[in-house]
């Protein structure tokens, strides 16, 4: 911690230390660079101070502008410097691409993604309901030509050729080699479609009249509303078990995840929390959904069920609403914040996700209750078939607890939590009408449980483990 002192003094006394004197001092360049950064970082704290202007990074705008004007490559260097300092989940994209990714209503697209590698041009992704899928293209299909034109072998040239012809014609026409080795002619046009109509359907088969099946391919902006429709339809159809298929679901919005959990959970329960650099953010269910529909839930997962899928699965399992079958999940227990700016989107890793008891599946994934692997040689979906037999129609009844309880494992014993963390916990408590108890656990096993509302009432700027032991 730095020491802050407040003073009010007007002008220089006696002989002031002129800042220019420092510029002439001979110190190691590294110390100076460090110092500049610190200077700017510290000054940034005052950027919202109304009235007088003060130091902040934005003043470097002109400096960078000149630099990029003189040497355009320096922009790449700066980006690379940033990129080098973040994890793989932090990246820059443009607004349109970002919106495309999280809105399932596609307009005028063919719905496939081709990777132009060094040796082959392979389809790596196909969107549900897209013209590409309807035409029978599968992931792993290799493009052999395009609109009858042979490829040159130069990935960049070939990519440009594909883009050009597609823009001119709006069509994909190519010979493709399917994963099983057969070669087939494909031809399809771009169209409007919704990748996610499946999310709003609850399928009930004649063989299993008491079991509904809902597939969730992603947690997109509109998935929450669609799932609510599917869930209502499951209740209306009188099913007693629901299979939720999260296989190959890479995740998506956390707000969607929360909305879906609230659709299912009829009690006020602690769901999960995000650990951030300045504390944590707690989440609970609002307890507003139907308390009369409590089916047995079986979730299907595989190694590509990631992120939001894992939050959804782990929370339902944690409280005993669901069991999962399939294979171990991906293991991404971290999240990113997204900032839209100037036509681009910065996505930066900003929080870790924990279950209410302080556990995480990050890097490890969630092991299913029953491990079942799909046999790719057979037409049958062994995992789904098993799920139908596994669903027991017994339903789940979860009691409303008397408090919302969270356990936070401290990274270090003197880790500090700001007052705003407890303020947020108090809001949660007011809204839920339940006390919020938080257990802080140190690495050596010592722990302390506090009533968040009471801690808030004491109004310190921040609290550490030691403070709370008192």
């Amino acid at each position, binding site marked *: 911690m730095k020491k802050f002192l407040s003073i*009010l003094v007007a*002008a220089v006394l006696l002989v002031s*230390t002129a800042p220019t004197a420092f510029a002439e001092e001979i110190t190691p360049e590294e110390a100076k660079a460090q110092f*500049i950064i610190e200077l700017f970082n510290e000054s940034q704290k005052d950027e919202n101070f109304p009235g007088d202007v003060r130091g902040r990074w934005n003043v470097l705008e002109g400096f960078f502008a000149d630099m990029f004007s003189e040497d355009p490559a320096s922009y790449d260097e700066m980006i690379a410097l940033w990129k080098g300092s973040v994890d793989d989940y932090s990246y820059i994209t443009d607004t349109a691409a970002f919106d495309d990714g999280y809105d399932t209503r596609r307009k005028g697209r063919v719905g496939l993604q081709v990777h132009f590698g060094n040796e082959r041009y392979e389809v790596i992704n196909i969107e549900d309901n897209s013209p590409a899928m309807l035409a029978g293209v599968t992931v792993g299909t290799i493009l052999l030509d395009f609109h009858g034109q042979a490829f040159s072998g130069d990935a960049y040239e070939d990519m440009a050729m594909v883009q050009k012809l597609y823009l001119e014609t709006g069509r994909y026409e190519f010979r493709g080699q399917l994963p099983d080795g057969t070669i087939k002619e494909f031809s399809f046009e771009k169209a409007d479609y919704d990748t996610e109509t499946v999310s709003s359907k609850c399928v009930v088969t004649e063989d299993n009249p008491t079991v509904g099946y809902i597939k969730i391919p992603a947690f997109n902006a509109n998935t929450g509303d669609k799932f609510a429709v599917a869930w209502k339809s499951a209740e209306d159809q009188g099913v007693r078990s629901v299979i939720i298929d999260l296989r190959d679901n890479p995740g998506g919005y956390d707000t969607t995840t929360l909305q879906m959990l609230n659709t299912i959970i009829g009690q006020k329960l602690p769901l999960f929390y995000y650990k951030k*650099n300045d504390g944590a953010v707690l989440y609970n269910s609002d307890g507003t959904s139907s308390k009369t529909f409590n089916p047995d839930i079986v979730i299907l997962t595989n190694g590509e069920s990631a992120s939001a899928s894992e939050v959804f699965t782990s929370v339902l399992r944690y409280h005993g609403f669901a069991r999962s079958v399939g294979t171990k999940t991906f293991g991404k227990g971290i999240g990113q*914040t997204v900032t839209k*700016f100037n036509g681009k989107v910065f996505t930066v890793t900003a929080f870790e996700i924990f279950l209410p008891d302080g556990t995480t599946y990050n890097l490890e994934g969630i092991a299913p209750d029953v491990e079942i692997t799909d046999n790719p040689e057979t037409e049958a979906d062994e995992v789904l078939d098993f799920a139908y037999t596994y669903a027991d129609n017994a339903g789940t009844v979860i009691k409303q607890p008397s408090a919302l309880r969270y356990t936070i494992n401290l990274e270090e014993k003197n880790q500090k939590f700001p007052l705003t963390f407890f303020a947020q916990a108090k809001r949660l408590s*007011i809204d839920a009408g339940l006390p919020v108890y938080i257990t802080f656990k140190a690495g050596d096993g010592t722990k302390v449980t506090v009533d968040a509302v009471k801690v808030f009432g004491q109004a310190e700027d921040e609290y550490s483990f030691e403070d709370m032991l008192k």
Partner: protein
Amino acid sequence: MKKIISVLLAMALSLSLSVTLSAEEITKEQAKAYAHEILELYDVSSVNENFDEYGRGNWYALEDYLTDAIYKDPNVYADWYEIWKQSTDENSRLNSTTYLEETYEGAKKGKFGITFTVKDGEIYVPNAVYMSPAEEAGIVNGSVLISYEGIEVPSPATEQDFNAMSTVMSEEETLEITLRLPNGELKDYSIPRGDFDEDAITDKLDITGDTGYIIVPSFNAGTDERFIETYKKAEEAGLKNIIIDLRNNLGGFTDTCYNMLNAVIPEKLPTFFYTSSTAISITTSDGLGSKDWRPDIVILVNDETASAAEQFAGVLQYYGYARLVGEQTYGKAIGQNNITLSNGKILSVTALEGYLPDGSTWQNKGLTPDKVLKDDLTTEADEVLDYAYSYVDGEGTTVEQPDSYSYTYYLGTDTEREALATFAYIRQMRGMGLDMPVRFTYVSSNGMAMTVDADKAYDAAQIYYYFGILGDQSASAEKILKGAWLDEDARVIMTAWTGDFGFTPTLSVAAAKEPKYFYYYDSVAETLTPFEPAYTYTDGRLRFNIDKGGIIIVSPDELSYEPTV
């Protein structure tokens, strides 16, 4: 405001945008856009700088880059510093590691005790420091430096000349200078270095009849104790008048100022408040000053009375405890935070703005004395002090004890937000004995106001609040609705906060007729929902309590509204 949303996703979406620039020339504007983007990028990323496990973007990533740049061209360092400097006010600066001790200790070792400033092209001596070798040598305040160590001061003198002079003087053991005195006479001085304590002057109580005279040259650490002791001596002597000399007092620590005000003010009163980027912090008098001894206080000020000195004088003048005699003061109501950097250097950054309880400020204006009077430097007499002796009347002041600490804050924008921290500080002060309600009145650009109780706002535990009343939007909504269906005497109030407050702030609006009907207006559903708040109507102003923000209509007549389909 930027919109920040959270996502949970495993892989980067389809195509991550390529960020390479083509090698060809880009325009200045493009470069500027890229620069802005970079800054935004780093700003956003630095939010996460302590999140260690997953290394992430922050400004420190530039360290190697800057190291190289400065290695290749050391001027880059100066450039960056200069860029920073240009973005701050003149009170923000970088100081040496010993800056704090040198500046805020009255006790000086091996100094001359003379102050110089550049003014109107001359190097000017505002004053000799009390108790110093310079004072002993008989330096006359207001003299102009003609030469030092045989070096003539160029005319007009510049900042560079001042710096050159500082460098030479810093190496001398005895200062040989020639000054032009205010009466035009040239005089040579020889001033040795010496150890002295300027604040020791405050220990002295100069008694003339019923009047005591106390000089306070600074608000250093320790000045408060000295002042309080001397002030007590005056009480014990049963004096009827006190003259406090704050001329040439440039200010100092805020704590010193609070303690001195507490010694003088017998009542519990709001004294002033500060705003920073994060919160409003208030100060109050503790009501422990002597209630039985109320001397008439006259404070001497001049254009070098600044900052903490202005605060002291300003608060006492505001409540009528003191009258000021002398010149318009300097006009600095802003404060700096001193931050020690890891290399030991001390960064002073402007971080606070000070206001009197009614929201007024002396920033850039100074305080206007009750009797404006300038010392004639060409005479030996101290006309200002002499006048003060004739001005004192032996009549002390009693201020009625209010039942709350109330502060008025004029919002910079109608949507300025107030952070939880403001109310948390007050809750903390409760633990330290603050025992009256604290109320803040936030005034919007249109003169409408909202008054909140700090404890209730704290208990509602919002991370932040909007207490503003949207000026332009209220006015235009009023105009539109009056044209359509609203009564001519009705008023429309749009608050910047649209949800539940969790407590009941008081709104205050001008209204020509007493309104008796109150409605929330939902502009989407086009519905009027009546409510019956407690209200008062005095002097054409309506005050009433609300528990949630939104569009509020007040009217002297009952309103009914049929949506126009």
